[in-house]
C-alpha cells in the first residue's frame, strides 16, 4: 500500500459504465467503470485486442461511446461541442507511432498548438517549447525535421508536443512499442519524470517493470471488460483473480 486511504483526493477522470462497440459483433468496451485521482498514474494492461486503446481513445473523444458517461476535470464528454473541444485541449495523447507532423521542424511541431489553440505569440510559444525540449533532452534538435530523428527522439518530441498544451491528463498508448529496445529506456525515463512531477497519466504498456514502478493503480482487462482493478502493490503481489495471475505469469 503506497498511499494512505484517508487522504481525500480529487477525482479528475470519472468513467462510469461506458460501452463501446465497433461495427462488428465483438464489443470493444463493456460496462467499463473506473476513476482516476489527480496526480495518479493508472496503467492499463491486457492481451491484444482487449480494448486498451479503445478505452484511451474514448477518454479524449477520438472514439464515441455508445452509452455511459465520461467526466474529465468536471467537464462531461457529451454531445456539446464546447465540452469536447475543452477536453481535447486538457487531455494530451502520445501514440505508438509518434504521429509527428513530418513537414514541420521539431520547434514548429511543438509551437503549432500553442499558437493556434492557446493563442500564444511566437516568442512565448518558442520559450515554452525550448523549456520542454530541454526537459526531454532534445534542445539541440529544435530545427530538425522528424525524419532526421531516431524513434526514441521522435517519441520524446511527441511527448513534449503534448505537454506544450499544459494538459491536465496525459494518455500514453504503447508509447514504446514501436521503438528499438535500446531506445525504450529514454522514453520511459521521460514518462517516469512526468509521473514524479504529479502528472495524471493513463498508460497502456507492455513494459511490466515500468508499469510496476510508475503506477498507482492497475487495470487488467480482457475482451472489453475489467477483469481486475487494484492498487499497484496489491495487484502485483496478490492478484485476486486466477485469470490475472495467469496473464502476469505469462508476461513477466
Amino acid at each position, binding site marked *: 500500500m503506497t498511499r494512505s486511504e484517508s487522504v481525500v483526493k480529487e477525482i479528475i477522470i470519472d468513467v462510469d459504465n461506458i460501452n463501446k462497440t465497433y461495427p462488428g459483433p465483438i464489443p470493444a468496451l463493456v460496462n467499463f467503470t473506473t476513476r482516476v485521482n489527480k496526480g495518479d498514474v493508472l496503467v492499463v494492461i491486457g492481451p491484444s485486442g482487449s480494448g486498451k486503446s479503445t478505452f484511451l481513445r474514448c477518454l*479524449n473523444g*477520438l472514439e464515441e461511446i455508445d452509452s455511459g458517461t465520461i467526466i474529465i476535470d468536471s467537464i462531461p464528454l457529451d454531445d456539446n461541442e464546447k465540452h469536447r473541444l475543452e477536453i481535447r485541449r486538457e487531455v494530451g495523447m502520445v501514440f505508438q507511432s509518434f504521429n509527428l507532423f513530418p513537414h514541420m521542424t521539431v520547434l514548429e511541431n511543438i509551437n503549432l498548438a500553442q499558437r493556434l489553440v492557446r493563442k500564444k505569440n511566437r516568442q512565448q510559444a518558442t520559450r515554452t517549447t525550448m523549456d520542454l525540449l530541454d526537459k526531454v533532452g532534445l534542445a539541440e534538435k529544435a530545427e530538425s525535421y522528424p525524419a532526421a530523428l531516431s524513434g526514441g527522439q521522435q517519441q520524446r518530441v511527441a511527448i513534449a508536443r503534448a505537454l506544450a498544451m499544459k494538459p491536465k491528463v496525459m494518455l500514453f498508448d504503447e508509447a514504446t512499442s514501436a521503438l528499438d529496445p535500446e531506445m525504450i529506456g529514454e522514453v520511459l525515463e521521460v514518462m517516469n519524470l512526468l509521473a514524479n512531477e504529479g502528472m495524471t497519466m493513463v498508460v497502456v504498456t507492455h513494459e511490466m517493470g515500468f508499469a510496476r514502478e510508475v503506477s498507482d493503480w492497475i487495470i487488467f482487462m480482457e475482451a472489453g471488460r475489467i477483469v481486475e482493478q487494484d492498487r499497484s502493490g496489491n495487484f502485483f503481489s496478490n492478484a485476486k483473480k486466477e485469470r490475472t495471475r495467469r496473464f502476469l505469469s505469462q508476461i513477466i
Partner: protein
Amino acid sequence: MNLRKKIMLNSPVIDGIKFIMLAMFCGWLIYRGSGRIGYNWQWYQVPRYLFTFDNNIFTPGPLLEGLWVTLKITACSLVLATVFGLLTALLRLSGSLVGRVLARVYLEVIRNTPLLVQIFFLYFVLAPIFELERFAAAVIALSLFEGAYASEIIRAGIVSIHRGQWEAAHSLGLSSFDTYRTVVLPQALQRILPSLTGQAVSLIKDSALVSTIAVYDLTMQGRTIIAETFLTFEIWFTVAAIYLIITLVLSLIVNVLEKRSPGGVQFT
C-alpha cells in the same frame, strides 16, 4: 551486352542524338510533304506577328497579345479551379449528405459532357442571363471543368494522409479548419503536386477551346492571322511552339518549387 555498352546506350548523349535524328526525320517528312502540295514557306513573315521593333519601341504583335490573353485566362482559371477543386473535395469528404450529393452531381455533369459544350452552354445560355463577358464566361467554364478533375486529385491527396496525423491534431485541440490548413493540406499538396501540375498543363492546352467563343487568345489570334495571310504551316508551328514553351516552363517552375521544400509546403 556488357555493362559499358549498356551505359553508353542509356547516356544523355545517345538520347540527344536519337532525339535530333527523330526531329530531322520529321522535318524532312514535313518538307517533302509540303513540297508535294506546293507549299510556299515564308518564315520571314512570322516575326512581325510576334512583335515589332521600330525606333527602339517594342510593340507586341497579335501572337504575343494572344499569349497574354491565354496566360491571363489560364492564371485566373487556375486560381478558380483550385478553389472549386478544394471546395468540392472537402464537400465530398464532409459529413453533410447534401454537400456530398451536390459535389457528386457537379462531378458527374462536368466529367460526362464535352468541354466544348460546357463552354457554349456558359457563353450562350448562362452568360446572357448573368450578364457575363466573354472573358469571364471562358474563365468560369474552364475552371468548372478543371476544378472537377482537380477535386478528385485533391481528395485522393487528403485521404492519403495517415489517420495518425488527424488524431495527433485532434488530441492537440486543433479545430478542423486548422487541422486542414496546417497539417493535412500541406502534406497532401506535397504529394499531389505532380498530378496537379499535369492538370494545370491540361488547363493551358484546353484554354485553346475558348477561341470558339471569339476570345482573342493565342489560338484565336493564330486563326485570324492565317485567315488573312494563308501562312497556315508557319503560324500553327509557331502557336504550338509557344504552348509547348509555356507548359514546359510551368513544369520547370514546379520542379524547382518541389525541390526547395524539404517536408512539404507551408501555409503558416
